């Protein structure tokens, strides 16, 4: 999403353009943050009641990935970390687990985005699978350290598959956000 920017011209119109750009840069993270928070809240609903697996898809990570690829500047690492902490609190997970996971996901998304700058759902979907894998392994390692034992990777794998399956829906919803 390119920021509308008019060439500076003398007088009030020019200053308005500059302010608008500054404003856009200043609150550029607001829409990604709000949409990711919305996704996080939806991932905390009891979806198991309607036949879906009880382990919810990681919708927050999906939103972070989509924003990090679409407009990297809108998803700074600090914001990703904060959103990860919100997910930890909302899901009741150990605090810091998904914070680190979201930061790793954002960095992996930027790494994927640079060589494959193609606006294709399939390419982005494959990129998301990679990001999901990186994030899941990191989160699993941290969880094993936290609990002091080797945990089953099964629930995380199930969650990853479900999240990947939901990706087209999430991408469609977020692409419509301007």
């Amino acid at each position, binding site marked *: 999403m390119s920021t509308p920017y008019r060439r500076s011209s003398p007088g009030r119109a020019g200053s308005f353009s500059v302010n608008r750009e500054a404003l856009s840069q200043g609150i550029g993270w607001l829409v990604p943050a709000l949409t990711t928070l919305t996704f996080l809240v939806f991932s*905390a609903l009891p979806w198991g009641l309607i036949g879906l697996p009880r382990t919810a898809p990681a919708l927050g990570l999906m939103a972070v990935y989509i924003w990090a690829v679409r407009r990297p500047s809108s998803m700074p690492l600090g914001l990703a970390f904060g959103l990860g902490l919100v997910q930890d609190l909302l899901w009741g997970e150990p605090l810091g*687990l998904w914070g680190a996971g979201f930061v790793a996901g954002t960095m992996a998304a930027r790494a994927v985005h640079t060589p494959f700058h193609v606006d294709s759902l399939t390419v982005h979907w494959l990129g998301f699978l990679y990001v999901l894998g990186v994030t899941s392994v990191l989160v699993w390692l*941290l969880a094993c350290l936290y609990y002091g034992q080797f945990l089953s990777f099964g*629930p*995380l794998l199930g969650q990853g598959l479900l999240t990947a399956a939901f990706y087209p829906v999430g991408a469609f919803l977020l692409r419509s956000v301007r």
Partner: protein
Amino acid sequence: MFASFLAFSMALLILDRAEASVIDKARSALDEMTAPLLGWLNGPVTAVQGWTDRAQHYFSLYEENQRLRAELEDLREWRDVALKLERKTARYEALLNVKLEPGIRYVTARVTNDTGGPFVKTFLTNSGTNDGLRPGNGAIDSRGLVGRVVSVQDAASRILLVTDLNSRVPVRMEPSGERGLLVGTNLDEPVLSFLRPDAVVTVGDRIVTSGDGGQIPAGIPVGLIGEEVRNGYRVSLFADINNVSVVRLIDFDRRPIAPVVADGPATGPQGIADQPVRGQNLDTPPAAGVQPEGGQPARVQPASGSEAESVEEDDRPADASEAPIIDPAAPNGVGGAE
């Protein structure tokens, strides 16, 4: 850059592990803040669940009707047996001056948030300290034990499921009476562990809560013993952990029982006459859900799925005719399968 975030995360994890109060407060504050929103958003999910349930039942009405008729006939007989036994038990308890367990109060609550995390099995309900709840209270569904309250806010409480890795529930096997701990594994089937080395364990035996620790009353149905694993035995839970929309939270009164002079100095054969007892009319059945050690299974009334808001209930039946039905033939001892 990543290293600094990772270090910060590790620091937070260590603080969380150490149960720092600031993290608990942050968690509680967010629970309190999001509970109403999630409750509101949960409306459509509950509605869809209702539609799918109705659609499923619509296509099996005849079979369901036949099954329920047969079950009703069976239960009528068992109801008479249960009422007779209940009166007899109450009479014996009074004669022996049995020290009854404290009263139990139930609070029915709706699940508003189901943590989707892969490592933690908890959910949030819309009842809290306003309803008299406190950490440690047990949570059951219509079939058996679901978990226990781990944190409470004014209008929300977080339930730790028995399947969670951090969950430990003292249990007892029936009929052997062997005690052990139900240990969560993050999988659907927790493990019965910490048994005596010479404990006799039979696959298919029932597991109920033992009441040890004083947080969850004894006799709440938990599950059936399954296959042996490395550190114990898998337990197939009675409760439908993956499909809980309404729970009953057990406010188990652990306050000391005030000494009450019984009607006449009944002297028990084991010299327990001097123990303080709760005065009891011999014709009145004991409080439902209260179970002497080694006695009948606890009677758990099915939670009403239509109850949307928290409802405080006193489960002491006014007379024997209101007593819930026990179905010893049912796997969890609770009459009326869903």
